[in-house]
């Protein structure tokens, strides 16, 4: 609770009174002036003056003396007023110091997050290859647990860290061929003999930002790739469906990057925004979060125009990405004239050049929302690895090398928010439908996938959303993958 006694002090009343008096005094002085000009004597005015007037003086000199006395009084009142203002400022400073604030920007740190609890089942035919790969039993799970640390250090410098906690890699399928293996991260604490299962932490974002102007800012660190709608929304309480679209699952564009972003916003008209972002990063790679395995940096450009009116809104955006991805293996060797100097030799096992991009559109009319994204990329190999079989992620036994390929994915989502209760305790229902089409490799058309989703969200307040959804997945050209149904429920909340 902030105290502000300054305005409750009787000193202000004093000032007001003095101001009134000052104004009154000035008025009197103005009234006297014409009288002095006319040379008439005013008995009442004379009696009202406290300054002694020498007897025998002319009328002019008496009026001048009165004016002089009043002028002194006015000056004294002005001085008193300034003195009071200074004292009020001083008292205010003391009060402000007492409550621990300062007149400068006060650094702050906000800690908050969101989580999502999931229940669901995939209905897959037992003879289907997907049966053993996907989760086919009814199960519960925690799909999201993200914690934010948002710091504002100065008016222009801020930091943002978003950590995603997961039980993985424990329990993940490590391999199917030639034998099945599962990651087991269970260890015994020798001091207590208790078995502990270790999970993991994904650093979604860890960036520091300098933003001196709206139209120019620089961020450094780990950031979300500024493409599309879903990757920016990304939290279960914000996105509408339960399941991510394939363009997110397949990482058609890298979801996160490590490097620099120059970004800014312009305001071309009321409620209209033009945003840009230029990214420079390690791009993709097996170690890109830590270091790059080649000197070629990935570059990207994001442009977005949006209008956010009260009843209508729209946004169109695009992101382009160009980068090189390299994987290496390292082996010890010996060099030098006598062949005894130990060296570590790098050998490139995979390198490709990637040109990728996305486009997104969002349209809102009252409570109706239509959004769509498309993302794709062309990968051209310089050093080709062996072909890896999709889904099971094992090298093809045929021994063929990976060809260049194109991949792309798109979705269209329509939703309508129906208010149940309006006002401050608003509740709403949001039915939605979504259609996706995904081409994993244009060289493997049998894996082209259609996904149809539908569901209903219930939002009892602004912190919680309950979701129920079903999906139908179809790979029309896959010889050994039948259609799949899924049912899922989710409770997502922010805290």
């Amino acid at each position, binding site marked *: *609770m*902030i*105290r*502000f006694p*300054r*305005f409750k002090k009787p000193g*202000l009343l004093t000032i007001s009174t003095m101001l009134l008096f000052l104004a009154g005094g000035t008025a009197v002085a103005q009234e006297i002036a014409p009288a002095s000009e006319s040379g008439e004597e005013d008995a009442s005015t004379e009696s009202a003056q406290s300054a002694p007037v020498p007897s025998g003086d002319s009328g002019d000199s008496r009026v001048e003396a009165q004016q002089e006395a009043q002028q002194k009084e006015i000056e004294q009142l002005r001085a008193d007023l300034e003195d009071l*203002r200074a004292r009020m400022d001083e008292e*205010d400073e003391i009060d*402000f110091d007492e409550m621990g*604030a300062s*007149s*400068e*920007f*006060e650094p*702050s740190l*906000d800690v*908050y997050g*969101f989580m999502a609890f999931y229940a669901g089942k995939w209905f897959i035919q037992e003879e289907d290859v997907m049966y053993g790969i996907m989760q086919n039993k009814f199960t519960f799970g925690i799909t999201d647990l*993200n914690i*934010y640390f*948002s710091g*504002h250090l100065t*008016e*222009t410098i801020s930091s*943002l860290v*978003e950590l995603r906690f997961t039980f993985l890699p424990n329990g993940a399928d490590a391999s199917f061929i030639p034998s099945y293996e599962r990651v087991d991260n269970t260890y015994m604490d020798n001091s207590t003999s208790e078995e502990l299962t270790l999970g993991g932490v994904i650093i979604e*974002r860890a960036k520091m930002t300098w*933003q001196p*102007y*709206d139209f120019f800012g620089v961020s450094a660190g780990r950031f979300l790739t500024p493409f599309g709608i879903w990757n*920016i*929304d*990304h*939290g279960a*309480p*914000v996105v509408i469906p339960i399941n991510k679209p394939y363009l997110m699952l397949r990482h058609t564009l890298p979801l996160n990057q490590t490097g620099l972003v120059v970004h800014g*916003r312009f*305001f071309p008209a*009321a*409620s209209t*925004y033009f945003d840009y972002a230029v990214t420079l990063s390690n791009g993709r790679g097996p170690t890109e979060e830590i270091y790059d395995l080649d000197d070629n940096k990935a570059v990207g450009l994001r442009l977005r125009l949006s209008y*956010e009116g*009260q009843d209508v809104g729209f946004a169109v955006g695009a992101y382009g990405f160009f980068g090189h991805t390299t994987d290496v293996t390292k082996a010890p060797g010996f060099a030098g004239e006598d062949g005894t100097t130990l060296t570590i030799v790098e050998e490139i096992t995979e390198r490709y050049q990637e040109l990728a991009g996305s486009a997104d559109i969002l349209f809102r009319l009252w409570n109706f929302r239509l959004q769509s994204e498309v993302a794709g990329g062309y990968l051209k190999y310089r050093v080709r690895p062996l072909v890896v079989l999709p889904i099971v992620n094992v090298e093809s036994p045929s021994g063929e090398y990976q060809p260049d390929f194109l991949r792309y994915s798109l979705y269209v989502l329509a939703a309508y928010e129906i208010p149940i209760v*309006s*006002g*401050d*305790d*608003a509740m709403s229902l949001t039915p939605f439908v979504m259609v996706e089409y995904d081409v994993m490799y244009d060289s493997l058309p049998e894996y082209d996938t259609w996904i149809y989703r539908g569901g209903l969200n219930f*939002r009892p*307040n*602004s*912190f919680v959303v309950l979701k129920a959804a079903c999906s139908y997945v179809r790979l029309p050209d896959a010889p050994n993958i039948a259609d799949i149904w899924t049912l899922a429920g989710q409770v997502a909340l*922010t805290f």
Partner: protein
Amino acid sequence: MTRLASVVTVLAFVLAVAPVARAESPRDILVVVNRASTVDSVTIDELRDVFLKKRASWRSGGKTTPVNASEGSSLREDFRKRVLNMSSSAEKSYWQKRKIKAGESRPAEFENTLRAVFKLRGAVSYVYRSQFKEGTARVVLVLPAG
């Protein structure tokens, strides 16, 4: 005579459509900035952008630090309706999303917004006319009551 009639007609029209001087009300909301601010005036659109943190600087330059009245106060409610044009619930939802998407927190809240503006350089907030004290802050926009 025809010219006179035209003049009279035009004058009558001008008087009919001319805005009637409106009396000040203690429930007018005064948008105020720190005395050191160089901002002279703001528009409602600009103010909405500032309080929804869609912009961090004034159009005329200078960083902004929006300061809200306490949640639940009539002043906050009036400002929300007149400027943000949204309900309390919609504003909460907006900030939940902004936090997750951009890591952006809602503006600080003060019981006495005038004091906060008086002390905090770059601050912008609002008070009822009846609460305003001359010399403590600069008025950059008046939102008439009702």
